[in-house]
């Protein structure tokens, strides 16, 4: 088959992935602490074609083989803080993450500060909706005082490369080798407000329209390549 057929098919696949990423951003527009993901495209390997009489391919006569989504980059811009008035809601004014620990001792990091009172060991602690306990700056769970708020502010942790954190679902991230270990930071934490998602609906909708058009054009390329093959089959 001619190369244009496979380039068109690669373009269709990469636009499909782009729409997947955009759709996930749009569906998370109301998730507290959600960071939008942006897809990055890259071109695929180039093949050099031979000019007649040449012994090997020429660099001046190279044709590409399509495109692919190379990575999805997390947009780490801060979302707008929204006042909720709930004394167990927190938001970080700046960069950094809250730390939560589950029952098996695994630590996760999150920007979502919608915490509540959680029962454990006979007293109330501050934790998230799945029962994981929030840690303070020293790495210890924080007990609740009698009046419905935590005794201390939740700790904020920073990473050398927060873009390389691995999302685990449920608004949680876990550190990887590339992100570096968590270090405690003194960033200001505000009580009674939540950070909304940083999804820009206008950008996502225009990405969606553009992906749709590019998908249409790529399918036209595939159809054209197919009809060229049909004509070649009918030459004789």
């Amino acid at each position, binding site marked *: *088959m001619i190369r244009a*057929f496979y380039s068109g*098919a690669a373009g*269709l*696949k990469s636009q*499909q992935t782009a729409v997947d990423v955009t759709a996930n951003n749009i569906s998370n527009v109301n998730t507290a602490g959600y960071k939008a993901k942006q897809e990055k495209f890259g071109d695929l390997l180039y093949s050099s074609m031979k000019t007649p009489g040449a012994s090997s391919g020429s660099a001046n006569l190279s044709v590409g083989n399509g495109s692919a989504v190379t990575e999805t980059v997390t947009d780490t811009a801060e979302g707008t803080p929204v006042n909720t008035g709930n004394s167990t809601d927190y938001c970080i004014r700046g960069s950094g993450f809250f730390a939560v620990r589950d029952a098996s001792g695994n630590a996760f990091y999150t920007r979502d500060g919608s915490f509540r009172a959680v029962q454990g060991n006979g007293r109330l602690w501050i934790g998230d909706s799945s029962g994981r306990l929030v840690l303070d700056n020293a790495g210890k769970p924080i007990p609740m005082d009698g009046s419905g708020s935590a005794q201390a502010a939740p700790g904020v942790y920073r990473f050398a490369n927060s873009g390389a954190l691995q999302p685990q679902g449920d608004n949680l991230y876990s550190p990887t080798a590339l992100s570096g270990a968590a270090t405690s930071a003194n960033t200001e934490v505000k009580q009674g407000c939540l950070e909304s998602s940083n999804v820009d609906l206008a950008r996502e909708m225009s990405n969606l329209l553009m992906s749709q058009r590019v998908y249409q054009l790529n399918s036209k390329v595939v159809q054209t390549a197919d009809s060229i*093959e*049909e004509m070649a*089959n009918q030459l*004789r």
Partner: protein
Amino acid sequence: MVRGAYASASGMITKYKQIDVTGNNISNINTAGFKKDSLSAIPFGTQLLYNTADGQNVGTVAEGTVPGTVTSDLSEGTAEKTGLPTDLAILSDGFFAVQGLNGVRYTRSGSFTVDAGGYLSLATGQRLLGQNGPVRVGNDDFQVTADGTVMQNGKATDKILLYNSTTPQGAQKQADGFFTLTGAAAAAGKIQQGYLEGSNVNLVEEMTKLMASSRSYQTCQQAFKISDQSVQLAVEQVGSLK
């Protein structure tokens, strides 16, 4: 007969099988836990050509292509939220073990229901196996945690085990849709209740494979027709007595 005719015919047969495999993938696009198959074509072999005058070989000619092996792509399908507490999705590598008629079978499909005996089983009757044999949940609510522990009324009653093959490429799809694992060993994985893993079939990929296969089929058919016409010329005109 003309060598070219056999080569084109083998090309048509291989493309026909390719279209069969692609058609099966497309028809299973909504089957829970389905893994797409792909067919590899291998060249049939080469034959040495001899110069008729002095018997020296002048080179080789390929004799067409045959369908090779059908391999399953074990990448994860998209997990869809169904909200049914009996639907389980594996969000990692690994297979569920179910009790078949002749032993343990392995599958990725997590669309279970509670059968008459209170056990979690597939629609075709195979019961899901846990640590202590078939997993029984009765009529009560149950929660499944990420590591497979089944909790009922706050107590852990059973644990769903996931299995994986110890060798790479050790999972083979069988004729009934279940997998066999060479060297099945218990594996750690992540199970999500209320979600169902769909198929990993990519419609765009399958449609372009279908278009490419049918165009190649058409080209092979044209080549066969031309070989046939040259034999016809040899028979009718070259060998005619006039």
